[in-house]
C-alpha cells in the first residue's frame, strides 16, 4: 500500500529541513518527499495540515521490566506506551530478572518486541555479569544477538580498573558504554538530593558529588584510553561542567538528560509523595538551570526519559521504602516541549535531541526523514493543550508526578515502518 502524508511541516534536523512537504511512503520506507507530490492512483492520503512531521522519536534509556518483573511493565505495554508518547525506537536497560547479560535474554527481548510489533526495541546489554560489577560480560556475543550498547544502569561499576577494561573492550566492538554515574559510597542510604530540603525533611541526602565523582572518573578513563563514554541522566551543574570541559578537550563523551531533571526541583519532595522519588534525585534550581544550559549549548546531546514503570505496591509505602523512578514515556515529549515554549531550544533543536542525536549515539537506523529511510515518523500537534492523566497511560506504570499537569503539544500519530501504531488525533475545529 502507498501512503501520502500531505501538508505537514516536515522538521528533519539531519537534513536541516523545516518545510511544508509531502511524504510518500511505500513498503515501510519513505520513497519520495517534496512539495505537493502527485500520488499514484490508489494512494491513501492523510491530511496533516497544521501538524508537524518529525523523525520517529528515539528514547535511549527506558526500563521495560521483562523478563522477570512483568507486574511493573511488559515489553508489549512499554512499547505501546512508547508509540503513544511519539517514540518509534526505544533502548531498554538490562536490569531485568535475569539481567540481560547474555545472548538468550537479548534474543528473548527482541522476540517479545517483534510479537508486540509496535516500536523498535533495542536491548542494552549488561557491562558485567549479573550487573554485579565483578566480571565483564560477553560483549561480542551480546552484540551479535542484537544489543546496541552496554550499561549496568542503576548498579554503576564502582571498580575503576574494571571500568577501564570494559570501556576498552566495548570500544573495539563499537558498542557505546552508558554509565549511570553514582559513587555508591557517597550516596549510601540517600533518598533525595542533599541540600536544604533534605535537611528540612530529615531525609538522608544524595550529594551532587556522588554523581560528579564518577562522571569525572569515567571522563578521565575515556580520555586516557581514547575510548568513549555516554553519561546517563545528567542531573547536576557540576556534571554539566565536567562534560562540557571534557568535550572542549576532545574527549569522546556524550550525555543525556531526563525531563524530570529539567522540570522539577528537590523542593517537590516536601510532602513525601513517593512519585517524586527518583535516582538520580531531583536537584536544586541551580542544577536545573545548568542542565537546561547544557541542553541549549549542545553539551547534553539527547533527551531520554529513564522510563521507570512501577506497580502501586512499589510506590504506596513510606518514602524510604519506595522504589525510585517515573513512568515517563507518555509525558516526555510534552515536558520537553516546555523547553521550546520557554525559549531554551528551538523546535528543530528539540526534535534532534529526541531523535537524531540518540540514534547517532546508539548508532541505530533512526532519526531522519530522508528518502529511502524507514518510515518511522512522529506527527506532533504543537498547539494541542491536554492534561496528563495517568489512568490513560498505556504503560502499566502509573507512577508519575505529572498527573494533572497541563501541557501544550503532543504526538498525535506515530508511524513505525509506514504503519500507524498510534492514532490519537482528536476532532479539530
Amino acid at each position, binding site marked *: 500500500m502507498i501512503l501520502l502524508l500531505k501538508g505537514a511541516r516536515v522538521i528533519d534536523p539531519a537534513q536541516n529541513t523545516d518545510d511544508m512537504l509531502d511524504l510518500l511512503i511505500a513498503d515501510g520506507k519513505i520513497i519520495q518527499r517534496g512539495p505537493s507530490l502527485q500520488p499514484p492512483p490508489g494512494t491513501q492520503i492523510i491530511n496533516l495540515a497544521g501538524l508537524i512531521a518529525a523523525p520517529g522519536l528515539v528514547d535511549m534509556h527506558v526500563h521495560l521490566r521483562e523478563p522477570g518483573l512483568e507486574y511493573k511493565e511488559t515489553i508489549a505495554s512499554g512499547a505501546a506506551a512508547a508509540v503513544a508518547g511519539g517514540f518509534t525506537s526505544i533502548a531498554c536497560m538490562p536490569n531485568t530478572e535475569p539481567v540481560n547479560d547474555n545472548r538468550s535474554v537479548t534474543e528473548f527481548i527482541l522476540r517479545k518486541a517483534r510479537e508486540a510489533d509496535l516500536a523498535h526495541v533495542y536491548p542494552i546489554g549488561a557491562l558485567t555479569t549479573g550487573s554485579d560489577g565483578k566480571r565483564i560480560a560477553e560483549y561480542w556475543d551480546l552484540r551479535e544477538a542484537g544489543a546496541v550498547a552496554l550499561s549496568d544502569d542503576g548498579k554503576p561499576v564502582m571498580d575503576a580498573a574494571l571500568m577501564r577494561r570494559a570501556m576498552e573492550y566495548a570500544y573495539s566492538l563499537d558498542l557505546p558504554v552508558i554509565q549511570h554515574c553514582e559513587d555508591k559510597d557517597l550516596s549510601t542510604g540517600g533518598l533525595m538530593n*542533599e*541540600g*536544604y530540603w*533534605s*535537611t*528540612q*525533611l*530529615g*531525609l*538522608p*541526602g544524595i*550529594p551532587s558529588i556522588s554523581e560528579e565523582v564518577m562522571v569525572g572518573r569515567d571522563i578521565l578513563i575515556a580520555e586516557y584510553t581514547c575510548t568513549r563514554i555516554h553519561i546517563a541522566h545528567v542531573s547536576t551543574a557540576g556534571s554539566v561542567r565536567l562534560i562540557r570541559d571534557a568535550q572542549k578537550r576532545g574527549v569522546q563523551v556524550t550525555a543525556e538528560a531526563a525531563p524530570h531533571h529539567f522540570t522539577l526541583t528537590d523542593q517537590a519532595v516536601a*510532602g*513525601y509523595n513517593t512519585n517524586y522519588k527518583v535516582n538520580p534525585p531531583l536537584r536544586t534550581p541551580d542544577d536545573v538551570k545548568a542542565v537546561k544550559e547544557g541542553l541549549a549549548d549542545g553539551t547534553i546531546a539527547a533527551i531520554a526519559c529513564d522510563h521507570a514503570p512501577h506497580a502501586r*505496591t512499589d510506590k*504506596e*509505602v*513510606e*518514602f*524510604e*521504602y519506595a522504589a525510585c523512578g517515573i513512568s515517563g514515556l507518555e509525558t516526555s515529549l510534552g515536558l520537553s516541549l516546555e523547553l521550546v515554549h520557554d525559549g531554551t531550544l528551538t523546535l528543530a533543536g528539540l526534535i534532534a535531541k529526541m531523535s537524531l542525536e540518540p540514534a547517532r549515539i546508539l548508532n541505530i537506523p533512526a532519526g531522519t526523514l530522508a528518502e529511502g529511510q524507514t518510515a518511522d515518523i512522529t506527527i506532533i500537534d504543537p498547539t494541542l493543550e491536554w492534561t496528563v492523566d495517568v489512568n490513560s497511560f498505556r504503560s502499566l506504570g502509573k507512577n508519575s508526578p505529572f498527573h494533572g499537569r497541563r501541557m501544550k503539544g503532543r504526538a498525535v500519530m506515530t508511524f513505525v515502518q509506514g504503519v500507524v501504531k498510534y492514532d490519537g488525533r482528536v476532532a479539530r475545529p
Partner: protein
Amino acid sequence: MIKLAKKDILGIQEMTTEEITLILDTAESFLEISTREIKKVPTLRGKSVINLFYEASTRTRTSFELAGKRLSADTINISASTSSVVKGETLIDTARNLEAMNPDIIVIRHSAAGAPHLLAGLVRQSIINAGDGAHEHPSQALLDMLTIREKKGKIAGLKVAIIGDIAHSRVARSNIYGLSKMGAEVVVAGPPTMLPREVDKLGVRAYTKLEEAVTDADVVMMLRIQLERERQNIFPSLREYARHYCLNRLNLGLAKKDVIVMHPGPINRGVEISPDIADDPSCSVILNQVNNGVAVRMALLYLLTGGGQ
C-alpha cells in the same frame, strides 16, 4: 477558649505561634492533675487512642499512654517491627485496619521520615507524630518549650544552644522550628559531620565548637549520641567526642549564670553530658522535661478530640 483547627499534629514547622501557645497553655493547666492522689479526670472517657510504635521507645510511649489514661481515654499500644514492611502488612493496610476499628487518635512513631504524613492522608482519625526518622518530634519540642517557659518565664529573646548530632536528630529540627517561631535565638553545634547541609537556612547559626555555641546561652540542650554512628565515621571514637562535645562544669561556665540544661533522654553519662551536670538540680531540668511531657501529650489528645469547643 480557642480551638486547635488541625486534624493532625505532624510537625512544629506547620504550626503557628498561636497554636503552640494554645498547646502550652493547655498543658500547663493539666500539670496539676499529675500531682493529685487520684491522677485521673473523666475528660476523654469513651475516646480511644492507639499508640502505633514502629521503633523502640520507652519514654515517649509511656508518656502518651499515661497522658491518655489520666484523661480516661482507652489507650492501646501496638509495637510493630519495621522489618515487616518488606514482608507482611504495609503501613497503609495497617492504617486502614486500625481506622476500621474507629479509634479517635493514632499516635505513630516510625523510623521513616514522612510515615505519619502518609498515614494522615489516608485515615480520618487524628494522627500525632511521635517521631519520624530524622524529621520531627513535635511533642518533644512542645514539652521542651513548656519547660523553658516554666523555668524562664518566657521563650522570646532567649539564646538556646542545641549540641550534638543535629543531622540525624528529629528533636533538633522540631526545636529549631518551635523555638525560632517563639522568638528565641537558636544556635547549634557539633562536629561538621553532624551538621546537616545548609542548616543555616533553617534560621540558626551553626558552630563546630561547643564553646562557641554555649557562650552566653540561657538554655543548653544536649542531644543523645547514637553509638552506632561511630561505625559510619561520623566521629572517630566516643573518647574523642566526649573530650570535645561533652557538657561539663568548665564549658558550661561560658553560659549565662542562670543557664538551664536539657536533654531529651536517654542520656549517655560521660559522653554528651557529665554526670554532675545531669544530676545538678540548680541547672539540670531533665526530669522536669519528662514530667511536662505527660502534660503536653494530655493537651494534644484533649485539643485534637475537640476539647475547648
